[in-house]
């Protein structure tokens, strides 16, 4: 039997009273793609940050090629052949690819020979793994997928034998994911070892040869991928079996309450991103918008919720025109009319991460009674309400005074959802409700959306997860290049059909 390239024994790490990693044992064999899967907050990223030298473990040992090593900083890890591609890229936007890669490893004060040598080496690397990157391109001109490749290339150039990727597909389009997987496979074929951190079961099944499952800071199982199934892994992750399909009642469709006529919207760069869109939503119905990211869904939701200006066309709520190119209601007025919005990007828009949880729970409703009266915030009411909804939505930890950034992604999403659903909106706009959210919370969030629909709300759901669209929606529209390219009742629709529409070929 081969000795593992990376071996972790009894790793423990705690942050205060929270133990993020408990007695973790892990063996990773050379030349494999090893998946580490678990819910958000299961401790995957912490574990890998320890391996990369960003954190120091409280106890335990790390061996590389059978030799025990002490990793005090990322530099130590790089020397030992470990590279990591973070969820958020660490690149200097206005530098070129080449400049970014040699950053910190220039080796000479005035660029000359060594730079030339680096360039040649990199070109060779690019060729070997089919990276297809222009080394002189500026990072800010590159798409997300290419930026990720630069990160990978950077690690390889610095001699990485073990490459750790933290949620690499979260920001990629399906095509980019395919490209990435191709690259990862060719890396494996060249003998590199890859550790893939993810919470997407499909990726694990697709790519890995071995998989380790984490739950609440513990390693709960190791298995060969071929010996397991999606369902089995999901059960291990959450500790119980999950329904990947949602139970929902037969639709009880009411009258049309939300209507969009010939809507066009421009983005910040003055490019038309929504083109002549028409849609109607009835009460008691979920209308799903499927589409690859960047085909106008973001701008559409922003226009409908009053954040973005309407270029032409109009929006009607209960037969009353609420927005057109000349005047539009701001989000606060729309909220008063019963329109709630769960934004796509909770960090950028949905929350203020430096605020306390209770401050975020009234965000956007803070000027309504009983939360404030003649401009003075009513702390007692706010605390009471916060305690109540945090319990109802099972937000953990249940402490309204905790700063929001200390909650996990799923719990942050629950904070937003509880806030937006609490007022029983008539129309609910939802963008990517479960992005970066763990399976347990996904189930919960889906159930809440179905409950809202059964109570008679009209829901517009935009998601890049086809599964989510298929399991929740009553009717599905597909957006491509800012236009609606297809509309289907959600009966006997296949992902294949939708996929073709999403790609703009059908």
């Amino acid at each position, binding site marked *: 039997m081969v000795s593992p390239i990376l071996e972790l024994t009894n790793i423990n790490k705690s942050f*205060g009273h929270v133990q993020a990693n408990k007695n973790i044992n892990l063996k990773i064999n050379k030349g494999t793609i090893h998946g580490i899967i678990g819910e958000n907050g299961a401790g995957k990223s912490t574990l890998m940050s320890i391996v990369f030298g960003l954190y120091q473990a409280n106890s335990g040992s790390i061996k590389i090629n059978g030799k025990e090593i002490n990793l005090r900083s990322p530099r130590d890890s790089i020397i030992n052949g470990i590279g990591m591609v973070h969820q958020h890229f660490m690149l200097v936007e206005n530098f070129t690819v080449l400049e970014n890669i040699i950053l910190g490893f220039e080796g000479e004060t005035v660029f000359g020979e060594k730079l030339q040598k680096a360039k040649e080496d990199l070109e060779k690397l690019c060729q070997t793994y089919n990276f297809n990157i222009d080394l002189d391109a500026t990072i800010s001109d590159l798409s997300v997928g290419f930026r990720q490749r630069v990160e990978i290339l950077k690690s390889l150039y610095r001699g990485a034998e073990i490459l750790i990727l933290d949620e690499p597909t979260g920001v990629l389009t399906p095509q980019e994911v395919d490209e990435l997987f191709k690259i990862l496979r060719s890396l494996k074929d060249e003998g590199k070892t890859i550790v893939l951190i993810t919470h997407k079961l499909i990726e694990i099944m697709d790519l890995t040869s071995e998989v380790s499952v984490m739950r609440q800071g513990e390693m709960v199982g190791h298995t060969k991928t071929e010996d397991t199934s999606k369902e089995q892994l999901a059960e291990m992750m959450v500790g119980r079996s999950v329904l990947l399909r949602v139970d929902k009642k037969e639709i009880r469709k009411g009258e049309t309450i939300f209507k969009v006529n010939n809507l066009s919207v421009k983005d910040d760069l003055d490019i038309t991103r929504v083109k002549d869109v028409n849609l109607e939503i009835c009460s008691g119905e979920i209308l799903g918008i499927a589409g690859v990211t960047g085909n106008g869904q973001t701008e559409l939701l922003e226009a409908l919720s009053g954040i973005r200006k309407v270029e032409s066309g109009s929006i009607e709520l209960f037969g009353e025109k609420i927005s057109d190119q000349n005047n539009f209601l701001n989000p606060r007025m729309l909220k008063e009319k019963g329109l709630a919005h769960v934004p796509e990007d909770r960090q950028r*828009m949905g929350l*203020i991460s430096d*605020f306390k949880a209770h401050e975020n729970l009234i965000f956007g409703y803070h000027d309504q009674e009983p939360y404030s009266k003649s401009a003075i*915030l009513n702390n007692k009411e706010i605390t009471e309400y916060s305690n109540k909804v945090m319990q109802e939505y099972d937000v953990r930890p249940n402490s309204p005074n905790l700063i929001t950034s200390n909650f996990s992604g799923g719990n942050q999403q629950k904070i937003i959802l509880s806030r937006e659903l609490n007022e029983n909106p008539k129309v609910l706009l939802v963008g990517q409700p479960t992005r970066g959210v763990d399976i347990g919370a996904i189930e919960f969030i889906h159930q809440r959306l179905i409950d809202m629909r059964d109570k008679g709300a009209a829901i517009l759901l935009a998601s890049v997860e086809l599964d989510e669209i298929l399991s929740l929606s009553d009717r599905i529209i597909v957006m491509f290049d800012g236009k609606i390219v297809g509309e289907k009742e959600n009966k006997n629709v296949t992902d294949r059909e939708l996929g073709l529409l999403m790609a703009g070929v059908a």
Partner: protein
Amino acid sequence: MSNIVVDKSKVPWWVSNVIVPLVNLTLALLVSGLFVFIAGENPIEAVKLIIYGSFGYIQGFAYTLYYTTNFIFTGLAFAVAFHCRLFNIGGEGQAYIGGLGVFLVAINLSFLPVPIVWLLAIFGAFLFGAAWAYIPAYLQSKRGSHVVITTIMFNFIASSLMIFLLVDVIRDTNQMAPHTVKLPEEIWLPSFEAFSGILGIKIRYSPLNLTFLLAIASLFFVWFLVWKTKWGYEMRAVGHNTQAAIYAGISPHKNIIIAMCISGGLAGLLGVNEILGVSHKIQAGFPAGYGFTGIAVALMGRNHPIGILPAAFLFGILYQGGSEVTFEMPNITRYMFVAVQGLIILFSGALENLFRPQIESFFVRRLNREVNA
């Protein structure tokens, strides 16, 4: 040593808000002591003089509190804008124009009952200061001109404008110096001398006056505004995350203007202390750097009224004690104390994070040990 990772949620509040500022302050004073030593004086004697000068006798203490009053206003001014993530460097100019507001109201309405004149003069100070801050605020919110740049420029404009007024328009024409006539004595704010008489202490003169209470009230006002009202909530929301504020229907434009106007208004209140309380006339250059020092006060006080009060008091001690030192120690000039202030700003502002990680991780480890023991 440079990348110590400290889990912020584990750091007790008193470590980051009390211990760290105190350590920084001590360092600044140590370096200052070195300067004093190099200048050929005994640092320990200098400290004794500072303490004597600012606490040792009642008149000195009154001076300390008078300086504190000014620093509270300018410190609060900076802090309010900062909660909306605006760096209002224009406290100096806003205070200057605020003084004009006090004077114009007081001189033109002096026929009204005295307390009414006071109230209107305070209002005038706030309004003029706010108006001077409104223009940079408007330019920031509508045109994106950075307030740091525009408020600095507005300090110069305020200074030139006031010189023009003091020379050509509102000068006391019986003399040549650039200052106005004195306000009628009935409407002067009662000074500490009047009170001290009641308490049975006799002092000759003190600039401390009723405005000190206005400063204390302002501390409460700012605390209440920022943390207890929806306006403060909205200002902080815009400051922390403008995108999210827009999503929630909060107007960044409106809140930038509100925050800056309140900030400018608070700076303007300095004029009440200086003109209604002390000199009773506008003199050229009366804000004398209080506006700039207010930035340091706010930074040291972590932009919270509870921190600003001791920070303002500390600078009051330095101002008053410092003048005592320069009086007694010929080798130490007034400029040495400007340098000391500079060092405090350097250590508690610019180098604020120099020792923070070490101190915080030290306490976190100690506390952990106690818990485990």
